């Protein structure tokens, strides 16, 4: 079976539209990062910290029932944990929910309404700090900075410097794109989403390097030809691989999205978006940068 046979699409001719679109994507991503830094985005409890309320029961009702009772009362994005030996339940919400005032009163009235027999009382209410504190955040930024340097160096060493730039920009383009879409959709950004973004970065990087590799190979063989032509031919040659791998990854991501349940829904969504953007970027972002950055000179290593 073959989905995509020999193609001859002139991708580079369309790259000027792609530049406009991708610039918009990157700007959106950068804007959402600024918004996140300013605290205007929907940050999860992992980053924002919040309030933790311990409720004591005479006999704890099942978490499932508490969860649905609280959701019915309009509480959003909360975490539940039970301390079975103590008959206590911990309810955690992030800052923005808790600042609404009378938070524990509201919870207790909801719970008393539903589980009067279990005699719920507020045991304690405390502020909780973020799981990802300032130190962790600083470490992550340093890590990202050094991985850019790492990618640039390796790709520049194995290919050429401009390929390094192309790969780095394309990778960030994808991560920023997904982050931007999440920001626009006002989806909660938590640690799970961060790991999805890192996964996307890995995926996108692989995708880009595969295209580059073919460009490098073709550059060696037909160094007389125009770079546009070489890039176009290379992308067409690896197109079926690009599509197949996107497809298999999408298959598993979609399975997660549809059947995986609420908890991993956002994770799966991020991956689906990331695969789509990542596939687009290895064709329309990474390669045009390689062409534009180094002029028409073609010297393959």
């Amino acid at each position, binding site marked *: 079976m073959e989905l995509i046979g020999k193609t001859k699409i002139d991708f580079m001719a369309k790259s000027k539209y792609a530049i406009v679109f991708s610039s918009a994507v990157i700007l959106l991503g950068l804007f959402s990062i600024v918004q996140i830094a300013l605290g205007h985005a929907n940050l999860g409890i992992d980053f924002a910290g919040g309030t933790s309320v311990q409720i004591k029961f005479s006999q704890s009702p099942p978490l499932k029932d508490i969860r649905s009772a609280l959701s019915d009362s309009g509480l959003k994005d909360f975490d539940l944990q039970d301390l079975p030996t103590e008959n206590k339940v911990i309810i955690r919400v992030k800052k923005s929910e808790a600042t609404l005032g009378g938070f524990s009163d509201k919870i207790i009235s909801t719970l008393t309404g539903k589980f009067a027999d279990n005699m719920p009382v507020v045991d304690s209410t405390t502020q909780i700090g973020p799981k990802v504190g300032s130190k962790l955040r600083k470490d992550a930024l340093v890590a990202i900075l050094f991985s850019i340097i790492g990618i640039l160096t390796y790709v520049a060493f194995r290919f050429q410097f401009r390929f390094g730039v192309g790969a780095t920009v394309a990778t960030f383009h994808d991560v920023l794109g997904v982050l931007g879409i999440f920001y626009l959709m006002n989806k909660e950004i938590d640690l799970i989403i961060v790991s999805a973004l890192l996964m996307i970065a890995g995926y996108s990087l692989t995708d880009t390097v595969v295209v580059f590799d073919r460009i490098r190979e073709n550059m060696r063989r037909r160094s007389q030809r125009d770079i546009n032509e070489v890039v176009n031919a290379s992308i067409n040659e690896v197109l079926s691989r690009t599509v197949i791998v996107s497809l298999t990854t999408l298959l598993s991501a979609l399975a997660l999205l549809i059947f995986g*349940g609420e908890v991993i829904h956002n994770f799966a969504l991020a991956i689906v978006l990331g695969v789509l953007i990542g596939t687009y970027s290895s064709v329309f972002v990474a390669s045009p940068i390689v062409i534009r950055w180094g002029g028409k000179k073609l010297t393959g290593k």
Partner: protein
Amino acid sequence: MKKNVLGRFILIAVLASIAAAAFFIPISPIGDSMPDWWKKNIGITLGLDLQGGLHLVYEVDGDGAVQIITERTADVLKEALAEKGLSVDIKTEGLLIKVDPTSPEVTGAISKDYPNLELTADGAYRIKEADAKYIRDSAPDQVIERIRNRIDKLGVREPNIVRQGKNQVLIQLPGIKDPERAKDIIGKPGLLEFKIADDEAPVAAELPQQIVPDAESQVLEEFKDKIPAGDEIRFIVVKDKNTHEVVAKQPILLKSKVELRGDLLTDASVQIDQRFNEPYVALRFNPTGAKIFEKVTAANTQKRMAIVLDGTVHSAPVIREKIAGGSAQISGQFSLEEAKDLALVLRQALPAPTRLLQNVTVGASLGHDSIVAGEKAGIIGLILVVAFMIIYYKIAGLIADFALVLNILLLLGMMALVGATLTLPGVAGVILAIGMAVDSNVLMFERMREELRAGKTPKAAVDSGYDKAFWTIFDSHVTTLITAVVLFQFGTGPIKGFAVTLSFGVAINLFTALIGTKTIFDFINSRAEVKRLSI
């Protein structure tokens, strides 16, 4: 060629068996009968969301943190003034540093080099209130930092560590099998002190040679009034050589003055004593610490020096001669596990005293339905990908599917080997890896198809398709691997854990594609002249 194929088959089989053992034994009934080191280190733990764990709340003593810093400052101050040729007696009392004499020379030197110290009305120094407040406020965060490093060297354990309220730290550990050991590692302050034994005092000879482990309070009561001023009684633990259990204690009279503290350490590591085949903890001091250590050992030759950790004397060897160079060791009939814990606790000494407030179990935060949904999604995803590969690449697809299963097995095995924790999002990550794992095979197959189209024989197509795809696969994987290694090196906590799993995934992927798939193709090619490639 054929021999080579066999060798690679054996390699694959060995790795697969190790992975299968690491993953399956802990979750099977045999797991319980494995030795202790195995049970402590190997096996995948389910995360807090899937099975809950231990819930510990510690209170952090902010003033204690200020005191620790005060003492440290006093140590450094003493050394610095001595270097300037000023003979000064420096003592700490709570949060105060008493300096004698307070000549203008001394106060001038202090106010010049130590702007964070201020002179109080009664002539003692203390840390300025603004600095002290900062120390108090940041103490819980620093405790969190240290505790995180203590329990999660690789970042794969997925604990939940957050600051709670003003001065509390909440720690949730997934699926802890031994709560006592968890408490040992988490809550021990790691406060190391070197003190000199006062064996010349008459009362020292009156102390009993050895007592039973629980009789300390009686001894303390008995000698309460006989202890000379500035001295204290501590106890050396005596352990059984084989079981490492505490069998007795030896009282020892010490001068209360702390000669040297653990905060001047640069490293603590486990070494094995060749003669007795016994583990000990090797210490290295920084230059200041080394200087103090040399001075103290020179001034106290032929006396015993007690190594006190968190109030317990682990050993009290006699100082034979001056020790220069800044290394020391703690020995005391440790088991390897104990020595490791000890070194870890010393390296990550807590910057403030802590007190355990709450120690209870916590249930899974996700309902059974979430787990079932995750499992279902995984199975459906796997079936979809496996079926797609077979439909699209026929027999070759089947080979890729074999590589895929090998991939998952090795990944789970590796995670079990490092004792990783799997949360639901982690499970999602593994499922996703399924989709991505076929990448390398797809690359190879597409190349082989190209070669076939170019008119090559099946065998030639396999070989040159593989050769050409090799560098592509290598480069794309190495680039990702670099990212993962950097993330591991510079990231902390969850970022580090993610990097570990990512590097495993990438490395295993490289292995299954470049060795696994190729071996099967070679095997088929070596058995018969393949006329047509089912790809």
